[in-house]
């Protein structure tokens, strides 16, 4: 428990900054939506007139752009992008910082097993993204409720919840990479590289319409058009995501417990 609290305390500032930034992004778009008011129809026409490829690149579901949930899903892609970077950073740094900051000698000679250390660190990282999502949702939903007119709060909630799921995937990805790597000199370089890699794959996949890519990049696990239409997630992709999380956590334990911690 002391490790959990220590980790959470040391990432408190970053949790607040990230969650408020992502919320600000969403709120800004919600206000733009309100500002557009009745002009939204013209905006939808404009988006519809874009070439097909541009629409796919921007992940526009034009049929629902005139509703708040549709408009929200349009900006949410970028919220998720930020969230993925935050989560991967978190996962990478929570494991690698002991080596990078050379505090491994301190922590790993305490009367706790490596398994316990990893468990509390994972718990702290997961708690951090849950807190991020709670802050994000509170701010965003408050803003959404101020919008007059008809919209599906359920759809907005379901779309927002995918942030948590995608963050969980990138967080454990960060953990497993850090567990396997030696000393990571720069966390942000690894996380930005990986996240943008998947994001570009996601845009590329949209354009060529390749189905297989949907299984590869977590950004494609959730089709917001589908969520809005059906108020449901697509089970196969949820399963792939869950499977990856389980696998990554298992590998992290195996590697971390057996790892040699060399002198600085």
């Amino acid at each position: 428990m002391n490790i959990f609290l220590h980790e959470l305390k040391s990432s408190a500032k970053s949790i607040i900054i990230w969650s408020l930034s992502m919320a600000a992004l969403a709120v800004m778009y919600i206000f733009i939506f309100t500002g557009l008011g009745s002009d939204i129809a013209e905006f939808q026409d404009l988006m519809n007139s874009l070439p097909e490829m541009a629409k796919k690149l921007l992940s526009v579901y034009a049929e629902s752009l005139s509703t708040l949930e549709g408009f929200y899903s349009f900006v949410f892609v970028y919220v998720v992008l930020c969230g993925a970077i935050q989560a991967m950073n978190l996962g990478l740094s929570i494991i690698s910082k002991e080596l990078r900051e050379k505090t491994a000698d301190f922590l790993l000679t305490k009367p706790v097993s490596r398994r316990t250390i990893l468990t509390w660190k994972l718990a702290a990282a997961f708690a951090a993204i849950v807190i991020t999502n709670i802050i994000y949702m509170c701010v965003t939903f408050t803003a959404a409720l101020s919008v007059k007119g008809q919209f599906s709060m359920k759809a907005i909630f379901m779309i927002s919840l995918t942030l948590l799921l995608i963050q969980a995937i990138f967080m454990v990805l960060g953990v497993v990479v850090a567990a396997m790597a030696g000393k990571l000199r720069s966390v942000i370089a690894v996380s930005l590289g990986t996240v943008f890699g998947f994001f570009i794959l996601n845009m590329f996949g949209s354009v060529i319409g390749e189905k297989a890519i949907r299984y590869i990049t977590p950004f494609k696990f959730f089709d917001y058009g589908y969520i809005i239409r059906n108020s449901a997630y697509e089970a196969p992709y949820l399963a792939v995501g869950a499977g990856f999380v389980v696998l990554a956590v298992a590998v992290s334990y195996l590697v971390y417990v057996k790892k040699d911690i060399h002198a600085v």
Partner: protein
Amino acid sequence: MNVIEINNLTKTYGKARGICDVSFNVEEGEVFGFIGPNGAGKSTTIRTLLSLIYPTAGSAEIFGMDCIKNAPEIAREIGYLPSEVFYYDKMKVIDVLNYSASFYKKDCSKRIKELAGIMDLDLKKRVDDLSFGNKKKVGIVQTLLHQPRLIILDEPTSGLDPLMQQKFFDLLEEENKKGATIFMSSHVLSEVQRMCTRVAIIKEGRIIKLETMSNLTENNYKKFRLEFDSDIQKEHFQINGVSNLELKEKFISFLFKGNVNTILRKISQAELKNIWIEEPSLEEIFMHYYEKEA
């Protein structure tokens, strides 16, 4: 009773040498020195004992428990001071120490204040504002705050000024009197000589000598320095038991191990101007071992 038992411990890093076939015991209440130059395998041995790294072959026991399998249990009774100490930079000293204490199931707050007082450490400062020596002090307090039964020190005095070294050694002596076993590695031999009752000498990953300090310094070796009036043949003293024989103008110096009567008879055959017979410093003995084994 043995506090540490090391059996044929081997650790290899690919082709690079780690340690090879290291075996020795440390008894309860002992102050045990582990000496050798940099890169000889001191830290590798210590890190294996602490299960920071895993042995390639062999095993080690601490308090009769396997140091890998029972690492968390063993760690409860160990205080470890690394050669270079690093703590969470953004935390205050007192928070680091409280975090450290939170791993042991006892109240250490009184002991923290006491130790910080002795070591003259400001608990309110942030870790990244501390000098190297002050960080080392945090390390010392962190090592001793839970009153461990086994204290493991890796190059303990680096970064400490002589006054603090003195205070630290006093602390260690006190802990030792209370029953703590101390295992320290060093290449500064004077500190080993001062503190330790027994030493192991390690070279290129292998233990080359295991000896009580008194045997190493008093009983076995004498350091002779002789001054002559006339020229003298170096070869005159080239007998069994003599080593490090050196001739400098009219001075001859050497280490002698064996029956003192033999050497005194040899000396009496020459016309002396002056004579010094001393206990050799550990450095000299140490160099002697290294040269002989090389």
